[in-house]
């Protein structure tokens, strides 16, 4: 033993490179090298594309443009559509329809199973993205436009016709700060209030029309043992979805979150305060699920669909799903009502389609027109069938929304008068398209959760959020 250790000491002192020293050196280097490797791959010129997790649903097995084998592709040009996997099965038939009807363009699809915006943005930042047409929301559009990830669309043929057909006020939400058109509409979402009529019948309560009534009914439902968590709002950080509920409830009491030039009106707005205070009460009294902040989007939807809550707020595709007895255990009891509050207004927002900066023309525009506007026959095929029909969303085109076919679809799952009333009583948050907003929303989502849980005083949380807005706008 002694001789071995003295030998080791001798070899170390002589500076010999032994296996042991080499391994130690590697261990140190490895430890030091691990963490920065995480970001090194994401540079403006790097290629982190491979690291992103995507599910390819390319039914044609045609490679994406820019990929190695795409140069060998024959005749028709390939355009790749990017979407989150949640809507994949609904969109896929339209991809197939496009490929059947358009001989000169091949449409492939690429669905992201998780963290759609994070994965998509990472690929956009890395360059050579492998997709052409993709969806987003106004919160990301300006940022991606500023970064050069997407192209301006003004110069595309017949764009003036598309713009002329839009509902008033829509175009402004699509234009950049320098006036260029960054995106075209995918759908218009409105946050809607749904309740379980059987639960209310059980205690003989009417549908609440103010938030005070709402709290009383919720408490009674819990006290009577009808349901343990009467309210299942979407307060999770998936897609920062808590923001949608927040704006809807603030608007319902006539509040405002931002001023006309982006000033943080939420700092002083009484409806903002009362909303957050009410949420804190709901959480503290166990009127919402205790693990609501970390429950996934799908599991949150299942709380209402499984009859474990009486009230929820979300947009039409979700609520329509609640009325479908193949997806919901309470399908017969789901009703729509105007959101409670002093003004009963709700939050309206826009989903958009964009084209990546390096996409081939005119094929990508051909696909975009098919998805967002009219097909070659001049029909609003996707807006009518997919958006208004299967997803029960509003389109950006009044001509589609008011068509008898679409009205029939609405009647099949809810009261069209209530839906129309809520749509009329809805408004947008124009400042959402500001470049800083994409960073603000997740930050505020975390702060809101901390305020609701009582970990951060409401004053401090709002001040922290306002500081961010003032520093960045």
């Amino acid at each position, binding site marked *: 033993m002694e001789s071995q250790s003295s030998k080791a000491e001798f070899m170390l002192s002589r500076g010999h490179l032994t296996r042991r020293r080499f391994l130690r050196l590697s261990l140190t280097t490895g430890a030091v090298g691990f963490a920065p490797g995480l970001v090194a791959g994401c540079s403006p010129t790097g290629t982190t594309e491979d690291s992103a997790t995507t599910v390819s649903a390319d039914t044609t097995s045609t490679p994406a443009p820019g990929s190695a084998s795409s140069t060998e592709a024959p005749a028709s040009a390939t355009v790749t559509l990017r979407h989150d996997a949640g809507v994949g099965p609904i969109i896929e038939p339209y991809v197939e329809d496009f490929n059947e009807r358009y001989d000169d363009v091949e449409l492939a699809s690429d669905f992201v199973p*998780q963290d759609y915006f994070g994965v998509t943005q990472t690929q956009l930042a890395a360059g050579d993205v492998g997709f052409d047409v993709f969806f987003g929301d106004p919160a990301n559009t300006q940022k991606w436009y500023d970064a050069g990830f997407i192209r301006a669309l003004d110069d595309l043929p017949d764009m003036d016709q598309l713009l002329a057909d839009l509902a008033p006020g829509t175009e402004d939400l699509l234009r950049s700060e320098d006036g260029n058109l960054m995106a075209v509409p995918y759908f218009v979402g409105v946050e809607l209030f749904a309740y379980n009529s059987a639960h209310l019948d059980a205690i003989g309560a009417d549908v609440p029309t103010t938030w005070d009534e709402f709290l009383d009914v919720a408490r009674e439902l819990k006290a009577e043992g009808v349901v343990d968590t009467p309210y299942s709002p979407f307060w999770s950080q998936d897609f920062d979805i808590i923001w949608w509920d927040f704006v809807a409830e603030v608007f319902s009491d006539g509040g405002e979150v931002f001023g006309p030039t982006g000033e943080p009106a939420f700092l002083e707005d009484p409806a903002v305060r009362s909303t957050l205070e009410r949420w804190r009460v709901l959480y503290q009294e166990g009127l919402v699920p205790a693990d609501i902040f970390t429950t996934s989007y799908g599991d949150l939807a299942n709380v209402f669909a499984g009859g474990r809550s009486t009230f929820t707020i979300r947009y039409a595709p979700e609520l329509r799903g609640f009325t479908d007895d193949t997806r919901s255990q309470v399908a017969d009891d789901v009703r729509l009502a105007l959101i409670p509050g002093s003004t009963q207004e709700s939050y309206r927002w826009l989903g958009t389609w964009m084209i990546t900066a390096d996409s081939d023309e005119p094929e990508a525009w051909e696909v975009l027109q098919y998805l967002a506007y009219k097909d070659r026959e001049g029909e609003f095929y996707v807006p009518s069938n997919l958006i208004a029909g299967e997803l029960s969303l509003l389109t950006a085109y009044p001509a589609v929304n008011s068509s008898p076919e679409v009205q029939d679809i609405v009647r099949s799952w809810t009261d069209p008068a209530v839906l129309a009333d809520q749509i009329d009583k809805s408004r947008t948050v124009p400042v959402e398209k500001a470049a800083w907003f994409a960073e603000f929303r997740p930050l505020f989502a975390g702060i809101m959760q901390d305020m609701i849980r009582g970990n951060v005083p409401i004053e401090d949380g709002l001040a922290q959020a306002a500081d961010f807005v003032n520093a960045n706008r």
Partner: protein
Amino acid sequence: MAVREASSVQRPTASTRRHRTRGEFPDWLAGLGYALPALLLTLALLAWPLLYSFWLSLNEVDFRTQELTFVGLENYRSVLRGTLFWPSLIRTLRFAAIIITGTVVLAMMFALAVADRFRGQGVFRSLIILPWSMSQVMLGLTFGWIFNSTYGPLNGLLYDLGLIDEYVAWFADGRTVLNILAFAAIWNLVPLASLLLMGALQTVPLDLHRAGRVDGAGPVRRFWSITVPHIKDSILVVIVLATLNAFLTFGPILVLTGGGPGTDTTLLSWLGYRRGFRDLELGEAAAIFYIMTLMLGVIAAATVTALGRNKAE
């Protein structure tokens, strides 16, 4: 026979080295030559990202022009002044402490349990390595399912055993969530750590244990006085691995918590990801990861120093 052969080989000494024949490579050069391919690979895979990310941390990235603007230490200043950094750092250190402790203790228990021969030892050893093969995302999904407040099997088990009256919302409280994430990381790492310690345990001379027993030392005393000193190197390696795992835990946060509730599971790794890949602040993200790198470097260096000191003793 083997012993005689081994001892008959003339070991190089200082004097024999001095009389090296002409044309023969010095030992250090030969060693370097053997190690060079691996060294070059290591440099290519680690040094380049290391240097580039450091450069990124000193620059602001403009995606439109594809240009980097040198801003010096501004990104570091911005990170250190941020409201999320210090709470995330403290949380990460606490998280690492749980993982290191849990991994070392559990791995040691497993290693000791399977060190002695018993029937089915091979099968048992094969089985305990399984959790290590699980990816971080799968790990997150699995633990999310186990601890789910509605249909999680843990709640079902506890309820059936009469230990709880109603299902527990495990993911409601941030501290509990962080502990669950730590438990998942420990569960994932313990197999590898166990194998390392198992290998080390086999090098402990049985004679010393016999001598200790003759001297009246009990199992605990022998463990601390004989076993632990002999396997100290391996324990230190396990500590480094556990520290790395703790600092780089990301997948379970991505699939389970998104850094919440609130910011209760926002560790430095998640914060760096968020700044880089959500907010597109690559310079700040690189700065965060570089701060992590420095911390890991210090820990690794301290471990290597300790290893060296241990050998010298």
